Every structure is written in C-alpha cells, then in structure tokens.
C-alpha cells in the first residue's frame, strides 16, 4: 500500500486513494477544504480549486515536485509522495485567491439566506478569505426561480460546483438538470425550468454548498441556529428513512439527510420524507444529532479553527517564514 506524507504526517493508504481522502484519514487539521468534491457522487470534484495542494515530491520513483498545484480531490497518491497543504504559504496564498474568486460575484446576502449558518462558503470565507473585497464592479445577478413546488434556485448564489448536476445524473432517473451558457454567465438549469419531478430531487438541496438551492417548505421559517437537530427514522419504503429533523419546540421545521463530519450526506433521502412528513409523530426520534465541525451550529467550530490557525503559524515559524500580518503570509 502506498505511503504518503501530508504536512509532515505519514499515512499508508489503499491504492487509488486521493490526496484529499488520505488527508481526511489523518484528520481535519490537514484536510483541505472542499467546495465541489462529494465522496458520494462519482466524478465530482476538480472544479472549485479550493482543495489545491502542493506536491513537493511526486513519488519514491519520480521524486520531482509537480510543476503546478494540484486538486487534491482528483489526484491519486503515489508511494513516497510528499504533499504540503497548510505548511505551504504558496498553497494558502493560492487558496486565498480561489476564495476571493468564489466571492467576487457572490451576493453576500447572508442575512436573508436560508443557508446561513450551514454554508460552506461562509465557513471558507471565514477561514481563508480577506477582510476587504478588491472587486469594485457590479455583481452578476439572476432571477430567482422555483424548481417545482419544493425547491428554490437562487442562481446568483451558485458557485457552479456541479454537485447538483451530478446528483441529478446519478441518483434521479431522468436527467433534467444541467448547465447552460458558459463562463461567468453559466447557469444551472432544468432544461429549461422544468420542475424536477422525481422522488429524490430534494437531495440537490443537501449537496448544495451554498444557498443556491433551498427548501421552499423551510423558507424564512427560522435561522438554522435557532433550530435543534435530532436524528430520527421512519419506515419508509422509498429510502432508508434515516433523517435529521430540525425542531423548534415541538414543531418540525425542516427535514434533511444526515450529514457526516465532512458535511456530506450519509444516505440520500426521498422527497416524501423530506417535504411531507412534517409532524413529530411521523418519526421515531433517536436523540440529538452530532454536529460536524463544518457547522457554526456547533459551538466548538471556532475553537477548532483557532486551533488550526495556531498550528499553521507554528509550522510557518518553524519553516522560517516572517511574521504573518493579518491573514496574509509574507516570505522573509
């Protein structure tokens, strides 16, 4: 089995493992952030470029470094490979660039966005973003569209991660979801605005890292951090029936799939479970949900981030980099 070293930590992984997966095996401290990769969706990843890392040694056989940073989610490890993520100032600087690119056309309408509080872009911006925008132009705008009676598309917030496209391709039976146009006017479309009439279409809401695809039945009901997540199940004959309920008092405000520590859905759920079973009596409640470090709902989140920052600073100091000013790293 190939051995790979990431930020100085060695791990042995099965052949075919990507750098990202290997890093996740080591732990969240060295795992690069992801905005488009989704382990449950085949051929996902490679688009957003937030997970880029530096391969400082290609392999034991070919020790040359790779000339450009690579997308860790789409690059397989080789035996003897050495990877730098948070120990490389270039990677951090490049990632800051990617985050900036993702944000320049984002509406930053978090105060009125249902995703706020569980938005990957918010978290990413907090960890890697700059304090001030350098973008002085009008941001791109699209009309808000209802995709059927359950889903709303705010294209303006979309980061074109292609996750929803892959979801429709891979877990619904008729593909009606895709991308039209190109470049920075590309749009998610359902050929063209056909409602997605499919029992599993609601999963696009869960895979969407931002507030571009949201649940119409939850719209403006509550800020997510005022709701309490509990794990629950029901005897569903279409899906596993294993869900997460978001409660306010006795009321079920929202039903989602359960997510793992990387913010990914554990098992996709059907639309009946998601949109139609909104009474507590529809469910057998198992207990409070474990909340991933990705979520601001978890109080520990920011502690964890501070931990990461301290680690980064330590490593940089050890490598002889100058004091960091604000969030940017400068070379001595």
């Amino acid at each position: 089995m190939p051995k790979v070293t990431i930020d100085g930590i060695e791990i042995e992984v099965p052949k075919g493992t990507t750098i990202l997966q290997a890093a996740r095996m080591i732990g969240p401290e060295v795992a690069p952030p992801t905005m488009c990769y989704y382990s449950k969706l085949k051929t996902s990843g490679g688009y957003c470029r937030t997970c880029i890392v530096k391969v400082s040694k290609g392999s034991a056989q070919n020790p040359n470094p790779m000339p450009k940073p690579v997308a860790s989610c789409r690059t397989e490890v080789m035996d003897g490979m050495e990877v730098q993520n948070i120990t490389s100032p270039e990677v951090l600087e490049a990632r800051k660039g990617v985050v900036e690119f993702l944000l320049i056309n984002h509406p930053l309408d978090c105060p009125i966005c249902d995703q706020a509080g569980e938005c990957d872009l918010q978290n990413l911006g907090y960890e890697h973003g700059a304090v001030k925008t350098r973008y002085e132009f009008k941001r791109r705008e699209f009309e808000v569209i209802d995709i059927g009676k359950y889903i709303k598309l705010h294209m303006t917030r979309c980061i074109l991660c292609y996750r929803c496209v892959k979801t429709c391709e891979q877990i619904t039976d008729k593909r009606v979801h895709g991308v039209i146009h190109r470049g920075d006017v590309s749009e998610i479309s359902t050929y063209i605005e056909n409602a997605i009439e499919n029992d599993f279409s609601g999963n696009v809401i869960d895979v969407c890292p931002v507030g571009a695809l949201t649940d119409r039945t939850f719209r403006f009901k509550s800020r997510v951090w005022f709701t309490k997540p509990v794990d629950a199940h029901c005897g569903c004959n279409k899906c596993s029936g294993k869900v997460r309920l978001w409660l306010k008092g006795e009321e079920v405000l929202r039903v989602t799939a359960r997510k793992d520590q990387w913010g990914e859905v554990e098992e996709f759920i059907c639309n009946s479970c998601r949109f139609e079973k909104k009474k507590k009596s529809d469910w057998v409640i198992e207990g409070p949900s474990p909340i991933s470090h990705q979520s601001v709902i978890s109080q520990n989140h920011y502690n964890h981030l501070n931990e990461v920052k301290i680690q980064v600073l330590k490593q940089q100091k050890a490598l002889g980099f100058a004091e960091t000013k604000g969030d940017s790293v400068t070379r001595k």
Partner: protein
Amino acid sequence: MGKKLLIHNEHVAGIHTYEVYRQMGGYASVEKAIKTMTPDQVTDEVKKSGLRGRGGAGFPTGLKWSFLAKPEGVPRYLVCNADESEPGTFKDRYLMEKIPHALIEGMITSSYALGANTSYIYIRGEYFYVARILETAIQEAYTNGWLGKNILGSNYSLDLYVQVGAGAYICGEETALLESLEGKRGNPRIKPPFPAVAGLYGAPTVVNNVETIAAVVPIVNNGGEEYAKIGVGKSTGTKLISASGHINKPGVYEIELGIPVEEFIYSEEYCGGIRNGKKLKAVVAGGSSVPILPTELILKTAKGEPRLMTYESLSDGGFITGTMLGSGGFIAMDEDTSIVKNLFTFARFYHHESCGQCSPCREGTGWMEKILKKFMNGTANEADVDLLWDIQSKIEGKTICPLGEAAAWPVAAAIRHFKQEFIDIAKSKKFVDVSHYNRLNKTKEAV
C-alpha cells in the same frame, strides 16, 4: 526561397479538386504506407522526422502516437483538431481551403499508422464553408477508393467524418473537443486519464492539429530523416505561420524552422517589413496566448543572439525574456499600437471563451477584462496594474485546462514589458474608444 512541403502547390489551378491533387502526386503516401509499410514503420518515420505538434504545445508527434493504448477488441480513434480559434491563427483554414486533400491524405496515412478505422475532423462552427470543402474532398476520396472498405485491396478500412462545432474556442482544447464530439457540453475533462488511454467514447484516441497531420504526408513520402534535415535542433521541418498585424504582407507563410525572426518580418519573401515605414513595437509570436515581446527581445534573445523561428529559440529566456512558438499566429504591432488596448481585446476574448468550470478562470477572466476596461474608460489608477498582476498570478497554474494560463500569460507579459504604458494611461485619464466591440457583446452582460 525556403523549402515548402505543405503548401508548395497552393497556386496550382484546381488543386482543391481530386484530379489535380492526384496529378500533382497526391495520395502517394497512402499508397506507400498501405502497400509497403507496417503501421509501426509509419510511426517510426514520424518519430525520426522529429515532427512536433503544430496545435500549440509542440509535443513530439511520434512519441504521442507511441503512447496510444492498443487493447484488443477496443476501437481506436484519430481526431483532427480543426477548431483553430486562437486569435491570430488562421493557417489551418488556409491549408484546408486551398488543398483539402492534403489533410484527407494525412488523415488516411495517420489513421493507418494508428490502426484507427474511424476518424474525425472536428472543425469550428465558423468554418462551415470549409467543412463543405472537406466533405466534397472526402466524397471524392471515397469515390476513388482511398476511403471505405479494403483500401487499395488491403484489409485496412477507414471511415472519415467531419463534425462541425458550435463555435467555441474551448472546444479546441483536446478533451473539450472530445466531449463536444460526443455531443456533450464542451467542458475540458479533468486529466488523467489522457486521451491516449481514454479518449473519444472512452477509447484510446490521438488528437492532432490539421498541420501536424498534413505534415505526415511529406514525412512518409520522403522519409523521416529527410524531413529532419530541415530546421534547427529539435525544431525540424517546415511550419505554417499566420502573419498579421502592421506588416506589409499579411498572410500564411510556410517557413523552414530556424530562419531568423528578423528575416521573417523584414524580408520580401515573407512579411515585407512594417507598413507605412513605421517602426516595430512588439510581437505576439505564437497566437494570442503567448507572451508579447518588445522589439529588442523578439529580434534578439537576452543573450544578444539573433532570435530564430524555432521552439527553442523563441522560448529562450523563459517567460522573463522569451515567449513561445505556439500555434504560429504571428502578430506584429507598430509603434502607434496601444499595448493596453490590445490586451483589453485579448482579455475580452478569454472572458468570453472561458467554459466556466473552474473558479479562477470563470471569475478571474471577467475581472481582468473589467479592470482593463477601466483603462479604456479613463478611470483606471496605478493600483489597478498591481491588482491585474495579482489576479493573473492567481489564475495561472490553478485551473483545469490551459485556457486559464492562456488568459493569464498575455496580461503578465504586457505588464512585464510595458508597465509604464499602463501607468501613463492611468495618469492621463484619457478615453480610448472601444465602443465598436460592444456591437459583438450584445448577448453578454455589459462590461
């Protein structure tokens, strides 16, 4: 006069027809290859010739062919890249329009070498009339037994198709081309796997430029060694150059690789010097993506040696003082040219052509165009130059396909060599009229 191998018959009347092409010795390479050579022998000749890809990257063609996976029972494909959309490049069109059979012949000989029984020519949508010329030529080739079943009585069969794209620069990137050819959205694929292993419909595929494939004809006819005698070092053979800009004689020229850049610009045989007696200011030597160089660096390398029209000489000095031969789109600019305005038009192009898959290119190309537009509007300030520099550095090397680099390099080079011009414009607050571009810009969000 330099030796010509590709367009030596360009002025023969009727050379676009099968009869005349055949009379002038056409299709000899197919006869020679199929009757007297094994496929591997053809590949060997191409290897010996030192031929390098003429689509831009200059990758050795013989080597590329030898990488083609050959699993049993799986078809293999040869796909000709006739998407030619790089600004400043129009040599493939000239060749296909004038001597279409040169490409058809090259396709047959090359397909034979690769063991492909179905091959495609993917041509950009704007070249629809060239597609018709090619289709006529293909029909003639079928009628005369050069295509179809059992060519020349051998057991080798080949079908050749022309596929017209919808007009997108990105579909010239080989994996986007394959997606488009499969009928999908032309998004570049994430590599690996490379086309040599999993290309068209998942089968092993070679993608080559029009000129590369046409060059296989003289290589097979005269032998690889003969071809390699032309040129300098690893830049062998002849190359078509699309010359444009402020020169006396714009057009397509076939040059022997290795002639000095100065000779190419000033000799009567080629560009005939700068028009209206003006002085040369800068050259983009290999299509809009390659770094622009000021006169002193395009005529001579940083070491003071004369710069030659070869892959190596043009890239001497890396990107600090050098550039690339690229696709051979040679754009000369005279002393009155605004480098910034020119850069704006390039940036506008890349913004328009980004496929939008990856964030740095999707967002960065538009941002750079908008900042350059400020220079046109007289609203830029000096800090914008540094911002542009930073943005291009954050695109370069961080994207899925090289279009990101193609957008970043021209910006970097213009600032590297002509920074003062940016600053002067920012200070002067002068308005540069580019309104005529907006006519083409209707469908797009206004910049």
